């Protein structure tokens, strides 16, 4: 589904030019659950942002189901994110002073789905993460684990082809982290593709493949199980 060919990313020019990603070649199949690991500063987030169409590669090619993503303009990338992708961030990134259900409905608003359908889809998504009792709660009234579950509900409510999670358990304790990983696995077994960045070996074990990055290069690829 995803194919990265000689992908590179650098910041700055001339003397201060830093290469964050160098010659990345990757293929990710539909239905895979891939974890990306590596030391801090190795370029994990940068790679995720490029795959997530939030950023553009400096060199190389990026195909997503035969679409040359590196050729898209910013509006086309926005539409691609809207209809194909779901994001889960380390810092939850929920809208403040906005109820859980409104947060989950937001991607559907941009898809132009009617209010009624939006509400029922958002309710189902929140139910699937076990938060049907917290629909009207403001993020500030929810624990970190609950906030991350709202964020997962928001990411899966559109039933995206690809779910991207950058350190989704980075701010949580082990027990909460496993709860979150269970939810992601659940979503994976229903047939979705997931790419997740993590620091924790334990969490990476939920994936089917682990890509190890070092200094912007793929160090090795490890198959789990």
């Amino acid at each position, binding site marked *: 589904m995803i194919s990265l060919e000689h992908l590179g990313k650098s910041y700055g020019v001339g003397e201060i030019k830093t290469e964050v990603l160098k010659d990345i070649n990757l293929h990710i199949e539909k239905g895979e659950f891939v974890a990306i690991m590596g030391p801090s500063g190795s370029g994990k987030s940068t790679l995720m942002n490029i795959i997530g169409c939030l950023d553009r590669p400096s060199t190389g090619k990026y195909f997503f189901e035969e679409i040359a993503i590196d050729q898209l303009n910013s509006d086309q990338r926005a539409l691609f*994110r809207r209809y194909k992708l779901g994001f889960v961030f380390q810092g939850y*990134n929920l809208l403040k002073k906005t109820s859980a259900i409104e947060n989950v409905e937001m991607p559907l608003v941009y898809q132009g789905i009617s209010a009624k359908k939006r509400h029922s889809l958002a309710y189902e998504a929140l139910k699937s993460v076990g938060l049907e009792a917290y629909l009207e709660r403001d993020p500030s009234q929810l624990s970190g684990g609950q906030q991350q579950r709202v964020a997962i509900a928001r990411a899966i409510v559109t039933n995206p082809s690809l779910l991207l999670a950058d350190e989704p358990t980075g701010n949580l304790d082990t027990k909460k982290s496993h709860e979150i990983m269970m939810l992601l696995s659940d979503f994976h077994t229903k047939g979705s593709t997931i790419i997740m960045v993590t620091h924790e070996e334990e969490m990476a074990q939920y994936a089917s493949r682990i890509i190890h990055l070092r200094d912007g290069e793929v160090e090795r690829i490890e198959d789990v199980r």
Partner: protein
Amino acid sequence: MFVNALFLALSEIRRNLMRSVLTMIGIVIGIASVIAMVNIGKGASASVTESVSKLGSRSLFIVPGQSKGMGGQSTTATPFELKDIEVLKNTIFSLEAVSGVENTTLTVLYADKNYHTGIRGVENDYLVIQDWQIEMGRAFEKSELRSGLSVCIVGKTVTNKLFDTGINPIGKKIRLEHFSCEAIGVLKEKGANTFGMDQDDAVLVPLKMFQRRISGSNTIHTIMSSVKKGIPLEEATIQIRRIMREQRSLSKEDEDDFSIFTMQALLSTISGITQMLTVMLGFVAAISLVVGGIGIMNIMLVSVTERTREIGIRLAIGATADDILTQFLIESIVLSALGGIIGIIVGLMISWGVSHVMDIAFIVDSLTISVALVVSMAIGILFGFVPARKAAEKNPIEALRYE
């Protein structure tokens, strides 16, 4: 999407209610002053026009001397005499009525009451010119005018001051300082004139009597006349001028030593001043609208910076730059339109209050209201565009990283 942006804008305004209200104040003041000014202006000019048509839109005033305005005539010019009025009456057929008018103020007494009021020496034609009816009693008789008998017609304000309720003033003897006269009529109430003076605060006496017993000379300082319907005032003015020049034996080289005014010329001067004032105040209002717009821009810029992370989240989730632009633009339009609506309400309340106090017509000008609404929305677009574009141009990654 548009409806959603509208809801979003409203909830965002509610979320920062205090700030939104303060932001709107500039627009509220601007729109309120425009609405109040236009409505009060229209009300005032409607009242002026009404009183013009009521009180002699066809009347002409002749005063001795040349002056640029009313009231500033030179003292050296010779006043008129009764024969001037006779000649005008007999030679100019375009005039419906002609009357000499002499003015002074005196204290009038009846029983134990006294009141200081205007005394006016006039002829019956004066009532025609002023379109003034007699409510009780009668006008002067020819004999009373000719011989200057001590009779008088009393204005409503004066009767109210001198006579207790229930007393019929007709036939009562009123003292005008050192002599007395019999009240033969009471004038119908006229109210305040265009300049706010109480017209009923007057006592009318025969011109002859005024000359003999009050001024002690046979001079006349004002001639009032009204022009017959269908005849242009200019034509009558030319005729009067010719006759008066003859009467005062002016040679070809001499300039006029008298002036002819029309009520209308006077009022057009006033409405000119009012118009100029409106334009000036409108300018002030426009400035306050611009200031209000800048206030909106300022708050929106702050809001865009504060909500950088929200913008990042929305972009990640699939909002296009246009979606973000629309969201912030609609927010500023809603903000300024709300300010406009509040301003319209406040403006209408002010003009209602003023029209009540100043006793002028309360006019709601729907055109002004719709223009005000459109203008306030235009301000939202104009001053909301820069912040909205700033929001839309944000880089999603940087915006997401913003603390």
